[in-house]
């Protein structure tokens, strides 16, 4: 049982999800998976150097990451409200259809 490889697999699954999924929600889930992979490493691998410190690191790093994820979620809500969908391809299409005059300096 090797936790480094376990977290690597998690990471690979997350990246694969990023590459293949079109729904913003799924993109978000992929990101969560990647973050989980990293934290897994922190706790297990770092426990060799003292569990307490590893936990502290995890909490600090993970909460920061979650804050950024929160921003993405906020954006997601705006996008969904504005365009009525969270499908990236549809949004891109909508944006292309939109009048360019909306863009400000």
């Amino acid at each position: 049982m090797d936790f480094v490889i376990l977290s690597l697999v998690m990471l690979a699954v997350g990246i694969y999800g990023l590459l293949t999924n079109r729904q913003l929600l799924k993109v978000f889930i992929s990101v969560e998976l990647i973050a989980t992979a990293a934290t897994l490493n922190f706790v297990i691998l770092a426990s060799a150097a003292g569990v307490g410190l590893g936990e502290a690191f995890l909490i600090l790093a993970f909460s920061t990451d979650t804050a950024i994820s929160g921003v993405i979620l906020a954006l997601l809500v705006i996008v969904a409200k504005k365009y009525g969908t969270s499908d990236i391809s549809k949004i891109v299409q909508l944006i292309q259809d939109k009048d360019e005059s909306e863009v400000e300096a």
Partner: protein
Amino acid sequence: MILEDVSSWLVWILPLIASLFVPLIAKYSAKARNYFAVAISVITAGLALSLVPGVFFGSGEATSTSVAWITGISAGVFIDPLSVLFTTLVAFFGLIIAIYSLGYMKGEEGLTRYYFLLLLFIGSMIGLVISDNLIQMFIFWEMVGLCSYALISFWYKRPESVRAGTKVFIMTRIGDIALLAAIGILFTMFGTFSFHGIINGIQTAATAGTLDTGLLVIAAFLVLGGAIAKSAQLPLFTWLYSAMEAPTSVSALLHAATMVKAGIYLLARFILIFSVAPVLIAALQPLWFPVVTWIGVLTAIIGATLALTTTDIKGVLAYSTISQIGFMMAGLGTAVEGAASIGWFASLFHMISHAFFEGLGFLLAGGIIHAIGTRDMRLMGGLKKTMPISFILMAIMIITTSGLPPFAAFFSKGLIITSVTDAGNLIQIILLYATTAITFAYSVRMFSLVFMGKESEHLKKQHVHEAPKVMLIPAMILAGLCIVWGLAEPLVASFMHVSLETSLLGAFTNLETPIFLSLLIPTGLIAYYSYYKNYQGVRNIAAGKNPLTTILSHGYFFDDVYGGIARGISNVSDGVRRFEGMISLFPQKFASTIIHLANEVHVYLDVYADKSLDKLINVLANKTLTGVSKMKKAPSTSLRNYIAAAVLGFILIAILIILTIGV
């Protein structure tokens, strides 16, 4: 000595600093601004002159002083006959042009900008020739290019001016890259930018026998590339004709003393540096020197023939400059012994006499354009009566240009021909003789078109007047110098610490002189009769449609070729733009491949769950089809491509690291 130290620094710093004050003084009064510029030019010329005695009575050895500027670079001055010669010429000409501009640019818009750039131009050029290291030289080299760009497009409201300025900047930048590459090579070889350091490096390496001559030959060719672009030589000479959009005073400065002479200075300087090691000269002799001579000779004849056909009065002078600089290049190409060889001195001496007669030509042309408001020579004619002083001065100018004795160019051109006769081959000699003959022809043609004959319809409509005094006096000074300069040859030679084998009198008794004169007379006669006496025969040939006139009227097709290249490039860039999608699609392709694979995997997973063989084939076919069709419909979603690109980069980093470490 202290005076010299101070003035050698002030002579280039003063104009640079003073240029910044021009806008301030302009706020106060326009007149004060003009006289301020003239005063600065006078002081600069005085400072430059104060350097002359030290070199004249000195040993001819180079001295330099420098202060550290930033790590690895110092700012310094390098005093030897070559740099002082150029400094004096530039400062003197700056003064002439500053005075001339008082009349010529009167009432123009944007004169503050003009005087600012003029002083900056003079300061940069002096800075270029007096630098003691390559980086400082390169900075000023760039600044000279930039100032000429700004001055050529001075009338920026005329699109042609801006286009010409841009053309000049881009074409000369080709040379800048070559020069920069040469500097890079020299720096990697010797670890220093200073001239003294490089000379020492070459000497030490040569005595130790470890000199890498191959690399230095490449550097020499790159230097030649820089000089070709800046001095408008084959095949990059077409910018000089376009640069005629500049105000004529700027053209005069550009041709006589600054921009185009920078290339000659560069070559002369590097020949001095290279000639310290005989082994290096031996390496340069088989290819580099002949190439320089050939470029010079071919440019000379091409420029002269083009001057024969153009109808623009400034165009004739521009092509004349190209041709005369070709002479100088030819002379430098024979300077295999550095300063000791006659070719080196000859081309520098010719450089100065060219400055005088070409400058004179431009000042007069400026007066004529000023008076009648056109540059087309076909609209001129019969100016002899209305502009008598210009007429006399122009006569002096064309006699000097053609190299008739005893005016300046007779001696300088004669020296170049002598040096080529000594070192070059027969074809080069014949071409040079032919060029001098054609020079006479185009000079006479210009002269007769402008001053002889009857007044044209265009002129009858307007009141033509002689140029104002403030424009004529500088021209007169130059004309006087044209006459007497040739006699100063021994003086200049001792200033340059060069010993001449032939005496002044010997020039007349040489074998070359009779050949020379006998060639001049018929060509001059043909030109004179065809234009002045309206002898139709030659005119018909010149006006008719035959291969010769086609070639000449297209300027040897150089601009057409460059136009073709530019069109080609723009076609390619259009293509690139059309395929911008394709380039940026690469990550997208990558992503879609992954998606494709993902679909496939899904299909196989479903099949695995199904466990039935015939269904397997069905499902495989169906799902793959739907998968592919789905993929085709899917619009490009760029975020996914970005992520794909990032993953690609991640893999790239991993591969490269593993390659380096070799795990």
